[in-house]
Structures are given as C-alpha cells and as structure tokens.
C-alpha cells in the first residue's frame, strides 16, 4: 500500500489511513478506553509498522468506522468533490486497488477528453493473499490474550464455519 500511496498521490489520489479499534486486543495493545490512549497506540502503530502514509485517528466510539461498516480492514475509494463511493472492499488488497485506480484514471481521462461516459454498477469477488505469518506475529505482539482469543475462535469455527472463508 505504501508503494501505491507514493505512486498514485501524484495522479490525484490521496491515501487516508483511519486508525480504528483494536481488532484483537491483548495485554500489550489493549482495547481503547480513552482518546489519549487511542492516540498513543496509533503512534506506536505508525512506528512499529513503519506506516508512511498519513494516519488519522477515529473518535473513541468509532464514529467514522461505524459509518462505513465495522470490519477491521476495509478499503474505500471516494471520488473528488461529490464524494461518490467508486469502490469498496471488505478487506484491503493492494493489487485490487491498483486495478481499480488504473481503471478510474483511464475513465477520468476519457471524461477530460470530452468523451461521453455514464456510470455503471460493477461487483468483483477478489481473492486476497493471506498473510498468516505477519498476522500471527502481530497477534503475539498484541499479547497472550489476543493469541488465546484467536485460538478459541479457531475452535469455534470448527462448528460454526465463518462466512469469510
């Protein structure tokens, strides 16, 4: 995502990272109980994960997060001025985003060239790479509780298959 953010910033796309609630809280990175704590945790997130793109911290009660659905890793593309949602995904995947950004650039180019374009509705089933190692690493640094909760979830899913495969 960092690479995309740097590349597409000059093509008219600003990247906004919204820091939300902790999806897998643990002893080292507990759930947020005050806005100051949320800011602090966002700072260590920025540092430890080496995030270069600008981070914005949501309110303590997650007003922005709740307005867009409360999944932990969502991605939206919002058009300039009229704020139309051009693309949304339940999970962030840089490859999908790149395809969409290139497509939109091409279409925006047509519009600027006075070619007529009209909106049409599309859906796409993406296949995101699962970065298990990195995820498990983060779980461990969040604390033993985060790991234990995840292990309990794996047990739960044996009898209640998750919707996300």
């Amino acid at each position: 995502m960092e690479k995309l953010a740097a590349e597409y910033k000059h093509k008219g796309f600003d990247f906004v990272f919204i820091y939300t609630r902790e999806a897998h809280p643990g002893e080292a990175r507990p759930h947020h109980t005050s806005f100051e704590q949320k800011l602090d945790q966002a700072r260590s997130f920025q540092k430890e994960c080496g995030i270069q793109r600008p981070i914005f911290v949501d309110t303590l009660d997650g007003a922005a997060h709740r307005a867009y659905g409360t999944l932990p890793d969502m991605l939206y593309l919002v058009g300039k001025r009229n704020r139309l949602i051009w693309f949304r995904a339940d999970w962030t995947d840089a490859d999908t985003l790149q395809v969409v950004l290139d497509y939109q650039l091409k279409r925006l180019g047509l519009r600027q060239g006075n070619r007529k374009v009209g909106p049409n509705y599309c859906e796409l089933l993406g296949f995101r790479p699962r970065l298990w190692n990195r995820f498990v690493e983060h779980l461990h640094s969040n604390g033993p509780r985060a790991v234990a909760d995840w292990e309990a979830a794996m047990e739960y899913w044996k009898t209640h298959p998750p919707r996300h495969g």
Partner: protein
Amino acid sequence: MGLGWVAQSLQPGLVSIPTSRHYYLNIHRRKVTKRPGATMTQDFPYNYEGYDPGEREEMDFTRFQEILRVGQKAPDFEVTRLDDGEKVRLSDLSAQSNVVLEFGSFT
C-alpha cells in the same frame, strides 16, 4: 416498536431462531438482524476487551454488506490527524483530491 420482527421471522423460507435477548440469527441466509430497540453499542461495545468470533462478527459482515453501496455518497466524518493533532473532515480532503480510505489497526 411493533411485532414486525415476529412477522418477519415467520415468513416461509426465513426460519429464524432467537439467539439472545436482542438478536436473532437467520440460519438460512446466515444473516443476523437487529431487533427494533436493540443497539449495537448496548449489546456489543465498540471497543471490546477480547476478540470473539460469534454474533458480533456476523453482524459486522452483514452491516458491511448493507450499510453502503458504490454510487452512494460517502458519509462525512471528522478524524484527528496523528502528525499534528488537527481535526480533519473527509469533505475537506475530498474537495482537493480523490480519496483512498483504508481502515485498520495492529491486526
């Protein structure tokens, strides 16, 4: 407040079973629907202490599918820029440029 949710749960093909005081799970569509009067914050606090894959997560997936569509106007919001503590609105950001909105935390 009516008994609409009862009527809804009795529709053929929409067999629903009560799973808690406020929610019922549609086992055919794997869809959790909120009963009138129940709020997300009452039953599932936004900042939860420990991850639990049960009803809350089911609701999160359902909400994502139902809350917005492409082509709709993105809801405006105010967030705090980490670098300088400045309050920023999406409407200000999107006035200048198209915006890629990414949500996330440590995991």
